[in-house]
């Protein structure tokens, strides 16, 4: 996983693996990132998904991977706005 910061937006790139969950959770807890751009993601591990659900940043972006684009990112976006 590579993280690209642009103000309150953080863009995640590549494969976000289990060990990346800790980095991401720390980033989101610190509070200055309010939006995640998932356009550049190739995969998201369950632990990373869980960190997003736990800290509820806004989720944007349309990744290239079909599963991410069709199912996972919309599911995360729904949760982030529903609560």
């Amino acid at each position, binding site marked *: 996983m590579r993280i690209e910061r642009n103000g309150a937006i953080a863009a995640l790139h590549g494969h976000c693996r289990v060990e990346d969950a800790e980095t991401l959770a720390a980033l989101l807890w610190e509070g200055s990132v309010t939006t995640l751009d998932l356009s550049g993601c190739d995969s998201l591990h369950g632990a990373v998904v869980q960190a997003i659900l736990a800290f509820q940043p806004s989720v944007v972006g349309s990744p290239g991977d079909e*599963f991410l684009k069709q199912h996972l990112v919309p599911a995360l976006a729904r949760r982030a706005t529903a609560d």
Partner: protein
Amino acid sequence: MIDELLAQFLIEGREQALEAGADLAALQRGPADPARLDRCFRAVHTLKGSADLLGLTPMGRVLHAAEDVLGRLRGGQGEGGDFSVLLEVADQVERWLDDLDTVGVLPESASAASQALIARLAGDGAAPQVAAADDWDGASAFPGRAGVAIRYRPRADGYFAGDDPIAIIKAVPDLAQLRVSLAEPVADPALYDPFRCTLVIEALSTAALPAVETALRLVRDQVALATLRAAEAFAPAGVEVETARRTLRIDAARVDQLADLSDQLVVAKGGLIELAAQAERGGDGQALGQALRAKQAELDRLVAALHTTVGQARMTPLAPLLGRFPRLVREIAATLGKPAALEIEGGEVEVDKAVVDGLFEPLLHLLRNALDHGVERPEARTAAGKPAQALVRLSARTVGDQAVIEVVDDGAGVDPARVRDRAVARGLIDATSAEAMSDAALVDLIFLPGFSTAETVSSVSGRGVGMDAVRAAVTRLGGRVEIDSRPGLGTTVRLALPIRMVLAKLLVVESAGERFGLPLDGVAEIARVPADRIFPIRAGRAFVLRDEVVPLVDLAQALGAEAGPSSDRVVVAGVGGEPVGFAVDAVVERIDAVVRPMAGLLAGARGVSGSTLTADGSVMLVLDLAELLA
């Protein structure tokens, strides 16, 4: 032949599994009870024999292992044994019976599940971290959808074992929907543990069940699956809900009675043929009329007897229905992390089969609600001075011609202020009228359609199926729902249901220009009360009937119409054990009629218990006098 055996096994096996489950639960809670242990051993032994006979190998094997454990306990070895794994075996057998009932075979996962349970019965292997709620209600999670509904709750240490739940769900073929959520909210972000898995994944696949099972086989113990057919998806209010299980066990004596009645009907029909022949020959009109009247009386008697006997044959005890809930409540409580005990009473109460069949969904919903929204978290309970383990009671009793079923929890009760705010926010009532409402009236608002939607969603209570669906389902069965909440002490939801749906004897009266049916069994007598015998008493009027002062109510006024022209006809009916006189314009006739519960707009009308079609095809309302005066 196998089908016949299987059908029988589905009936008997379920009873034995329920019995074993109930005994094991009692043994786990309570002191050693050799009689219970014996009974449980026998039930498991019989189940094992039947499973072997039907070639249900995984079921037979695990039951064999369970029988061994019970045998040792019975022999006094392993005093005070651990019944929790045995209870899981009983629960698993019940789930397999459900599978056999719906698809006719054990699921592919059966042998793995069987092996795992056998290993745990033998004492090796730890308990699974999460009990997969196999009875999770897939239909309400994906209303109106067809396919295989999946609920995947990975074990808490799954990340360490190398599992990636997202990759696993991604491998499921033909995904149509996906939802991700957390099993518990993050209490303190500073203490957030990124590697303790709390994910809950719900998904819908349009692939066939075996394909989905194959994709999830490595985590099958953490997954609940439900096959949804579009017709089975939870129907919106107002649509008939068809239940899957339509088998009915009937006492042999009742079947004999039915056969006897049908023989008599055949004979009576033969008599009509003879009379028709006489009429054709141009016989004596008056004699023919008398003969026809006699035949009609005989047919009347037979039809009424047939109706009654069929009604009795349809009467079935609530025990098998109520017995399905202990396991479900255990699983729901485990999912929510709220320890709870379920007490069940009144399984012997007999109710019409149609009523029993329609009660599973509403009761399951009420129990879920009680655990999810009623019962507080254990810490909060302890802080409030309550035992950490919640108590939920599901009880049934007979009151007159009704079965009263209550779901009582000892939770926090319903907060009227929160209900009011929500109802106003949702535009169900306006703020001014909300201010004027009593607490009880406010709490009753939770039954309004649209009250419980997305916001109350949790993994247990499901989505979009609220208390309005419960009220609609109960109303369809001709019943009523009431809620009674005591803040801090708990909530009682009471269902009052008709015991039987057969011919009711009605007294037809006229009031305010309309005809109404009054249930004849509530009517004590019809009296003539001249105006000069009526005197004012407190706010109303009364008359003296055989030295007893009886309050007098004008039926038209009670119905909200203008008082009619004075007539001296008074129907005296018992209301709450006391006689009350109802002044009517006229008493028309007595009839036998099938009373249907009210639906649609009039469903909530006060004092109306149902409707019936009259001979001329018009609809006549049937009144509930007690409710009319309440």
